């Protein structure tokens, strides 16, 4: 069986599987990373949405061999330890999730959108195809706008440029590697963390 190696949430992983196994099942059934959900398997529902080299992709229709050597981020890799991404925070504040099953994909889609455009219009948000069968769309819209506002707030302070302090919850993969800033530990303000996040996002986009 061939071995494929890629970066998953900041850590190098290896999978023994046929190259045409979809990344969704490599993640879920081989690596035990279950945040990306199956909702259709054919790139229609977007429940599996994750990031490949910083851009949204759909693991259900991506072959394992096609991510070899690349950088995959799933919902599990979005927060830095206990420090949630501003989009996740906005999701909590707007109480978006109902059953929650679509939400990892919704959040990863929203993060990708905010990377492309820091101040998305309603039309930009309309273009998100992720299905929410529970119908939480309006709250998703509000949360994206709230996250955009959070992330736009200019922040000064030590956190953004401060030393990297690993701040990783048990069971989570530590973020490592160049260009991956970690959230400041301890007294870091939320806003400072948002700035950190922006820095990280920018770096990822370049990667």
């Amino acid at each position, binding site marked *: 069986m061939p071995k494929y190696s890629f970066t998953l949430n900041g850590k190098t992983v290896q999978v023994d*599987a*046929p190259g045409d*196994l*979809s990344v*969704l*099942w*490599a993640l*879920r*059934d*081989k690596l*035990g990373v*279950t*945040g990306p*959900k*199956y*909702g*259709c*398997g*054919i*790139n*229609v*529902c977007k429940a599996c949405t994750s990031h490949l080299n910083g851009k949204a992709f*759909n693991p*259900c*229709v991506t072959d394992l061999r096609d991510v070899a050597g690349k950088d995959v981020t*799933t*919902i*599990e890799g*979005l*927060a830095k330890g206990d420090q*949630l991404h501003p989009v996740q925070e906005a*999701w*909590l504040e707007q*109480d*978006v*999730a*109902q*059953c*929650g*099953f*679509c*939400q*990892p994909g919704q*959040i990863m889609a929203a993060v990708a959108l905010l990377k492309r455009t820091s101040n998305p219009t*309603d039309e930009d948000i*309309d*273009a998100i*195809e*992720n*299905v*929410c*069968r*529970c*119908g*939480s*769309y*309006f*709250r*998703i*819209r509000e949360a994206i706008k709230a996250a955009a506002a959070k992330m736009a707030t200019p922040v000064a302070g030590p956190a953004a440029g401060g030393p990297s302090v690993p701040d990783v919850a048990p069971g989570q993969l530590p973020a490592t590697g160049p260009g991956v800033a970690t959230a400041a530990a301890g007294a870091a303000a939320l806003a400072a963390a948002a700035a950190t996040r922006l820095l990280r996002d920018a770096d990822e986009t370049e990667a």
Partner: protein
Amino acid sequence: MTDVQGYDDTSGTDAAGTSRRRFLTYLMAAPTLAVAVQYGLLDGVADAVVPTQPQQAENFDLGDFLILAGKPTEDQLIVIEVDKAGKVHCALPREEVGQGITTAVAMLIAEEMDVPLANVTVTLAPGRPELMYNQLTGGSNTMRSVYAPTRTAAAATKARLLAAGAQRTGVPISRLQLRAGLVVGEGHSIPIGDLTQAAASPTLAMGAVEVKDPSAFTLVGRPQNRKDARAMVTGQLKYTNDLEPVPGLLRAMVRRPPTINGTVKAIVNEAAIKKMPGVRALAIIPTGVAVLADTFGQALDAKEALEVTWNAGTVDAEDNASILDTLKAVNAPLGPALGDAVEGEFDFAFVNHAPMETNTAIADIKATGGTVWAGMKSPIVAAQFIEDDLGLPRGSVTAVVTQGGGSFGRRLFFDGALEAARISKAVGKPVKLMWTRVDDMRHGRARAASHHLVRATLAGGDVVRFEHHVASVETDFRHGLGEIMTANGAAFGDPALIPISAGGAATFSQSVFGSTIKSPYNFGPTTQMLNEANLPMHTGSFRSVYSANTRGAEEIIVDEIAKALGKDPVAFRIEYAKDPRYAAVIKKCGELGAWGTKLPSGFAQGFGFHAEYKSCTACLVEIDARDPKKPRVTKAAIVGDYGLPINPRGLESQLLGGLTDAISTTLRAGLHIDKGLALEGSYSQFHFARQKDAPREVKIHIMPATTGEPGGAGELGLPSAVGAVANAYARATGTKPRRFPIIFPVDFTPFTKGTGSTRVQPR
């Protein structure tokens, strides 16, 4: 309750010195304090919250029936535990699928016990056979049925902790209080975790158990975000497919027939399939051919590569048109019109529940019994059905209830768990089963198609008679509700209680129809009846059961009546509302959505109202239908009166969900049955709303408490929104919508029947 250690039978004394309270406290065998109470014995509580006698049909609904059926076991329903760290836990014997019931129940417990909400954890109980008819999640009934038992158990737990505090400090109970998780008074401050052992003593001298007066609530009734949201947004919440409860779970998928209920004749290429990468086993089961592999990706590839010959299914000749003919044939015609009439004939297509999480279950079945894991709303019946199906003794199968990725009625059925159990038994291994989306849409369950004849008779500027004859493909209730009705039939068999259509004993469906469908308007003598066509298809209750179509159609006719009488639709509804609560909600919604706003051509507002389960909702939408083929609901205003709202934030979520369901099923989402199988196989074909179809502006208002107890919640938002969306479309386009969904072409290439899940390239 299997692990009862002892119980207390105690008289309490209130501040005035009169002995007035008497209750049983069951203490559970545990290292923690675990309390259940027979709250029915609590003075002043039972009468206030549980209808002990069925009342007139108008007031006795399906939820009341379920509460009544649950009465014999209600003392065991809610068990509250307090551990040494002061954390409070309750394993709720209901299913969470996104309604937010675990948060709402935690709020009730925190409120009654005066502990911080963060210290209360509500999880899902496995199937508890001793609860008999009291572990079914449906009928918008969870908060209605657990409100009193939860509060009483929490109050009794608090009373025990206070008594233990009194014993420890020597301060009389009456001078102690529980505050933020501490027993305080006269300078003492003891964390409740320190008192659990003493509080669990059967010989503890107890004080009075009193539940709070709702006017004293500080948490219940205030908006609260979901407690499980953080787990969801970080990807940590575990749905069935995310669990590995036993090692060595093989991934199972089932190749299904080309028509509904078809069966396997033969596998043509078994040897070749078994050689495919990762494939471990094949098994023929009643529903198809199960393929077991190391990963779902490999199981899927093998399932698609299978060549199977099939026997016919049960509805191979049926399609939407033939089914509609059948419905028209079974529907009782309306009699001759007596005067001016406003009439309508309506058709609603089948609608798939389409929860985001497809049917998924884990099963580990051994020779003597085993365990199944799935999102199940009727786990007791599920386990018993599986035991019977596999020839296992009663009590040998445990049903572990997992949090579900949506339901909308779907998870009342346990067909995934049953199938997983059959496969596990067949291959002698633990298995994790997942249905593909295509199979979930084509072989899963659906809201039954229905046909409606509605007539309002007018005379002297008034509505003097209202008739509505519904014909529906039979809805399957054999998921526990039917069993409950059979066993508790007395209440339901009483025609005075539940009005049914002419002709003998009511079917389950007719009983459900009769106990859920009511007209909220004073339209004179009113007849609403259900006639059924028995087609062997996979149906099931969908959010709002009969009300979405039945009341949705009526709300369209209500607008047409108002027009015929020259009245404003909102003012007309207020004028004819049966209950001042209804009128208040309609009025409030009109204000919230600025009813009557002048809009450009092609745009229009629409209004709808619905009352059920002792709650009511009104919905006002604006639609952009400049292109009648591409309408978009642009704004919505919704108002809900839930009697006593527990968590307004959660109720808003449910209303938002109901609105989205209404937009979808009214405008574009339905199933085309074609030669015995739905053509639709994914969200690209079954047009459930996406962000581009959802309004950009939504205002929701939850009315302050209007009664002393919670009404139903989960299903309330859909029927009023169906009326609003259809009425807005009608006004914007100058049409009379009669067939739903309104825009319903086969605008896709269907997947090949019998296969259809092959991966395609990204668009």
